[in-house]
């Protein structure tokens, strides 16, 4: 029964995915200006060069044929070739994706580690200084431009204190064989402690930049749902049965307060991905976000188009996952 609902929900994402692909297709072709001329803009390209590039991108074909090629290419997993790097776009994306996933996961870990205890404590001690701090911190977190916050952290921890490196994913002097592309995992697999430490040090600042900002929002959500749950009668019942207070709060209350937190995390994923783009640029983190930004400047539209599409699909899938997780956490909710 539930499986059918999940399948239905999965199928409903297909038209959105198709729309995203269509939008990506038309964005390059319908906007003002000739994309080929823009791509070769800085170099005084000859007419022959323009024609050659146009042919290579298939832009000399009639629109319906271009559309056909685009979609059959998608089905075959072919997103075209980067005109700048002269490399298969799928390959380029595959090398950058692990770095972005690693950063996103680290961000979530940081955010949860901060937000869960802080959110619970401020709900239990409502009106205390900690509680007021959480509420104002949440407002600050919403208003904070992530890129500027990242620079402040660099200024403090890399420039002044010199505790952490400013950029990159690992010390370039360290030789590490890449298996999965997740450097923390790879260095563990290779039993290389030096590499592991270096990767961890490089990960800290970008993960904290994104994680602290997000934890402000998350802590507020956890606080308000905890406040509501703490009023419930079943907690009084649990206390009356002699369940220790910490168990009442952690086991009985927090579990039920978790649902809104999961939802917000999922909904926030889009912003997290967007923030990734900026924070990756600041810290020269070799992920998908930095790829998009550098491709925009290199006028490598084939890559931009593919990466933006990948972002959108990831976002849709993440929202889907949240919906499904929601039903698992709260069996009363129907999809």
């Amino acid at each position, binding site marked *: 029964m539930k499986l059918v609902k999940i399948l239905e929900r999965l199928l409903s994402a297909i038209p959105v995915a198709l729309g995203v692909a269509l939008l990506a297709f038309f964005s390059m072709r319908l906007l003002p200006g000739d994309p080929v001329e823009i791509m070769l803009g800085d170099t005084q390209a000859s007419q022959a060069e323009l024609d050659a590039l146009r042919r290579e991108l298939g832009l000399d074909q009639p629109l319906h044929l271009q559309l056909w090629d685009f979609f059959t290419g998608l089905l075959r997993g072919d997103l075209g070739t980067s005109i700048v790097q002269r490399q298969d776009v799928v390959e380029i994306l595959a090398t950058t994706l692990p770095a972005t996933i690693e950063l996103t996961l680290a961000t979530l870990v940081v955010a949860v580690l901060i937000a869960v205890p802080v959110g619970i404590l401020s709900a239990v001690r409502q009106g205390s200084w900690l509680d007021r701090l959480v509420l104002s911190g949440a407002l*600050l977190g919403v208003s904070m*431009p992530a890129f500027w916050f990242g*620079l402040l952290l660099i200024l403090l921890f890399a*420039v002044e204190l010199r505790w952490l490196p400013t950029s990159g994913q690992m010390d370039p002097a360290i030789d590490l064989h890449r298996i999965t592309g997740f450097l923390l995992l790879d260095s563990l697999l290779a039993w290389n402690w030096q590499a592991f430490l270096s990767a961890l040090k490089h990960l800290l600042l970008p993960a904290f930049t994104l994680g602290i900002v997000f934890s402000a929002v998350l802590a507020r959500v956890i606080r308000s749902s905890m406040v509501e749950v703490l009023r419930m009668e079943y907690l009084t019942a649990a206390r009356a049965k002699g369940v220790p207070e910490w168990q009442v709060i952690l086991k009985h209350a927090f579990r039920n307060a978790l649902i809104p937190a999961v939802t917000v995390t999922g909904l926030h994923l889009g912003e997290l991905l967007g*923030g990734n783009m900026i924070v990756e640029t600041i810290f020269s983190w070799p992920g998908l976000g930095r790829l998009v930004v550098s491709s*925009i400047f290199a006028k490598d539209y084939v890559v*931009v188009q593919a990466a933006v599409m990948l972002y*959108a699909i990831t*976002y849709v899938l993440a929202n889907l996952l949240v919906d499904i997780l929601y039903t698992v956490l709260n069996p009363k909710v129907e999809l």
Partner: protein
Amino acid sequence: MSLPKPLPLSFQRWNALWDVLVRLARNRTGLIALAIVTFYVFIGIFAPFIAPYDPSQTDLSARLSPPSATHWFGTDSIGRDILTRTIWGARVSLVVGITTVLLTALAGMLLGMFGGYFRGWFDKLTARLTELLQAFPDLIFAIGMMAFLGPGLGNLIVALFLKGWVEFYRLSRGETLVQATREYVEAARALGHSHLHILFSEILPNIFPSILVLATLRVGYFMVLEASLSFLGVGIPPTIPAWGSMISEGRNVLFLAWWVSTIPGLALLVLVLTINLLGEALREVLDPRLKERV
């Protein structure tokens, strides 16, 4: 001036906007926020008279000079005065934030109200379109758009607009759907009022407060988006002083001069924070019952 006692406030009369201002001024947070925002607007409008230097005037002998009596917030890598450029930068943020909100609110409100009231194929079509747009995170959509449109103030507002109206659309549509089932709408229909009259004179005043709150919060949001895009170099062209691009310039000299990116960032943070506070105060003032809902 006597305030209408029964809350929440109704927007039947358009001078209700004045009532809102009076109520905001009586709310402590609201008053402080109003004062700071007014200060920023004042500085932005009168930038040429207030700023001590010319924003593009370079002074190579005073490159990267730290904050001092002659340059309160120091200078950047080609000797331009940071205080001056920060003051001028307020213009871009305010213009982008306010213009984008006005445009997105108007478009989203109209589409949402018509969709929620008349339903039909047009409503279905817009709903599908918003679903599609929502598949893109805001910043990524804007960056993608700017990649194709190229930098510029007008292009930036267009890029933010193309997706920004969705929030207002969803809010107005949802609220209109609820209001359309209320008795007063039925009564107006029975009295023979036209659909347009019902939409704009009966329903709009009732949904306007929530739109106003959303609009306030969105001003700050669009400012951060603009600064992010300018920071990445795809927003405002570097010839115009904007906080985002100033922060980006400061990034290159972070090791030498902390003030170059810190000052404009602080200006942005304070403004956005104040606007968000104003939104919260507005929410309280418009409907005190909302306060309890976190």
